[in-house]
């Protein structure tokens, strides 16, 4: 079975997950206490007005019909009107999500680029000074509250050293919006001034966000590296004269990377959760404020929309990782059986 069919199978497997997820979110949102129509119109609206809005929103229909209506709309890019912004939720999300996406993706890249070497160094020097230092760091990374780390980093880099801006997304005029990703848009517009500024604004929040997953990745890389290093084939390769460094950085690393990938997928999903807090501390114009406002206002369509996006990020992250997993470890492509 080839790699291509593996990719197709994995992708198709994501569809039922998405449907299940949407049913779950939709049902949960509908059984939430509070009357969305009443909330939207305010306490002083007349009972008739509330009734007619409920009619309009389809709140009287059975929940199955409501769900199917919603899904039908979703495929046409209609996620319902947000009660707070009075715009279509889809348009709102399209506006806010790219900023969040840019933040968590760059954060994850930082976590990977720093976390993996940390884990390898620790794994290679098991129980020695390097290992202990990296474990201590990992311990801090996991246990430090992100908002606290955020404030410390702001104090240090923005106020004391003045190297990086403390808040916001860009300090010059923004490039024309194409993807909504500031880094990409500025490059497309070949506006390097904007790119530099966007990057500077991005570094602190992304790094703060990266701390926890970085620690996770380092820990995972370390333990799978150590485990892999004791396998028979490592001895066999040694005995056939392949240098130790090559065995470590080529053979063992590739084999142990599979389990690190799993952690990366999980963490990527969680990042969107921690991003909510980080966005507020760094005044990052992403989905966080929108999501929080929606929850406070019991703005059902917006809540469903935001939650769906978070869910889809999870699904896609897992899909990408599954595919990479198959690339790194051929055993996975063959269903994981030994024969």
């Amino acid at each position, binding site marked *: 079975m080839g790699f291509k069919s593996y990719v197709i199978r994995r992708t198709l497997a994501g569809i039922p997950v998405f449907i299940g997820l949407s049913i779950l979110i939709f049902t949960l949102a509908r059984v939430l206490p509070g009357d969305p129509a009443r909330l939207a119109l305010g306490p002083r609206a007349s009972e008739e007005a509330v009734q007619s809005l409920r009619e309009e929103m389809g709140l009287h229909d059975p929940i199955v019909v409501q769900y199917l209506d919603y899904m039908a709309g979703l495929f046409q890019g209609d996620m319902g009107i947000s009660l707070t912004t009075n715009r279509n939720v889809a348009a709102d999300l399209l506006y806010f999500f790219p900023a969040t996406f840019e933040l968590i993706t760059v954060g994850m890249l930082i976590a990977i680029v720093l976390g993996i070497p940390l884990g390898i160094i620790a794994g290679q020097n098991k129980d020695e000074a390097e290992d202990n230092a990296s474990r201590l760091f990992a311990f801090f990374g996991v246990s430090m509250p992100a908002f606290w780390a955020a404030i410390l980093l702001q104090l240090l880099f923005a106020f004391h050293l003045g190297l990086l801006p403390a808040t916001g997304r860009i300090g010059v005029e923004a490039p024309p919006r194409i993807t909504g990703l500031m880094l990409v848009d500025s490059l497309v517009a070949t506006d390097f001034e904007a790119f530099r500024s966007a990057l500077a604004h991005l570094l602190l929040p992304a790094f703060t966000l990266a701390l926890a997953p970085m620690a996770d990745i380092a820990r995972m890389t370390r333990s799978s590296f150590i485990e892999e290093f004791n396998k*028979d*084939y490592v001895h*066999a390769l040694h005995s056939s*004269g*392949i240098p130790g460094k090559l065995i470590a*950085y080529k053979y063992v690393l590739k084999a142990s990377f599979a389990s690190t990938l799993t952690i990366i997928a999980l963490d990527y999903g969680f990042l969107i959760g921690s991003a909510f807090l980080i966005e507020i501390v760094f005044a990052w114009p992403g989905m966080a404020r929108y999501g929080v406002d929606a929850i406070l206002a019991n703005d059902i369509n917006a809540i469903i929309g935001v939650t769906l996006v978070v869910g889809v990020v999870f699904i896609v992250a897992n899909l990408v990782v599954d595919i990479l997993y198959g690339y790194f470890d051929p055993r996975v492509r063959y269903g994981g059986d030994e024969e």
Partner: protein
Amino acid sequence: MTDPILELRDLEVHFNTFDGRAEVINGVDLTVEEGETVAIVGESGCGKSVTAETVMGMLPQPPGEIVNGELYYRDEELLGDETAHERVKTESLGMIFQDPMTSLSPVFTVGEMMRDVMTYQNKTNVGWLEIFRNIVGRRDVSEADMHDRCIELLDRLQIPDPEGILDRYPIELSGGMRQRVLIAMAMLGEPEFLIADEPTTALDVTVQDQILDLLSEQVKREDLSMLYITHNLGVARRIADRIYVMYAGEIAEVGSCEDILDEPLHPYSRGLVDSVPKLTEFDREGIEGLIPNYTEPPSGCRFHPRCPAAVAGECDVTRPPRFELADGREVACLLYEDGLSPAAANEIAATEADTNRGSGTTHGRSSGPRESDESIESLTQRMEDANE
């Protein structure tokens, strides 16, 4: 006689375990002559693999510790000189492993592994730049040359579709194919000395036969010397010139294949040979009991708790030295003290064994190797079961 290619003198290896210090190898001497295949035969846990690992310089230390002993390869001592050992290992030694399922990297293709083995042949010091270039797929050696060499070796090991195999991952191959690939990889480095640690144990019986044939073919063709580790007398007889019977970290008996199989002297070897079914009578005898505990090995002869011919007051007190009965024929058993002739001692051992067990143990030609394989297999299996 010329100097042996490999000589192990008075090896002692201890292991630090939770139960204390285990004296796993207790004074092993072993020689392999140029062009000779020597088999070490013994049940699992007798220390034969530890011996092989020591020769290969792959003994995990700790928990293992080489307490005493010398290893000469072409008159060069290796146990005291790590760099020399490393050099000899990369230049002259080749190793074939027990489990072909786990001895190949699961995440690279056969071709990739073979190319790496070739690229770093006889190189002991490799810089970071070189490592990096390799990882991004660049090598100094010509790809075409390597390709040809791989195909040639895979062909020689009768691997069908060698071109295709190079692009396969080990998981796509059967156990027998993987073992062939492992042998091919060991041959890539053009070793002059092979160490094979039970290379057929994990395979089906029919596949075992093919692998053995292929292996002895390679050994003959390249005029290699080999140390072959097995628990299987039938296999040893097929491949080896001489056999060392090992029991509980000591050499029990040394002799040519015919010597050991036709006229085993040590009561332990007798047990091993007798458990090979005869064509005529087809009776099976195992050896009662287990490999002893290494942290508190039995006093005197380590075999005495299981020995049918043990003499009380002697065997449990005196450690038997190795008596050389004829040229290249040695046995470590007190029955052969005072220059007792092999025949006479054998007689005693046989009668003792008979009275002890009440069944006849005559010598006889054992049957074809395949049946014998199975029988020893079951014997060892029984021993392993009892061990657990």
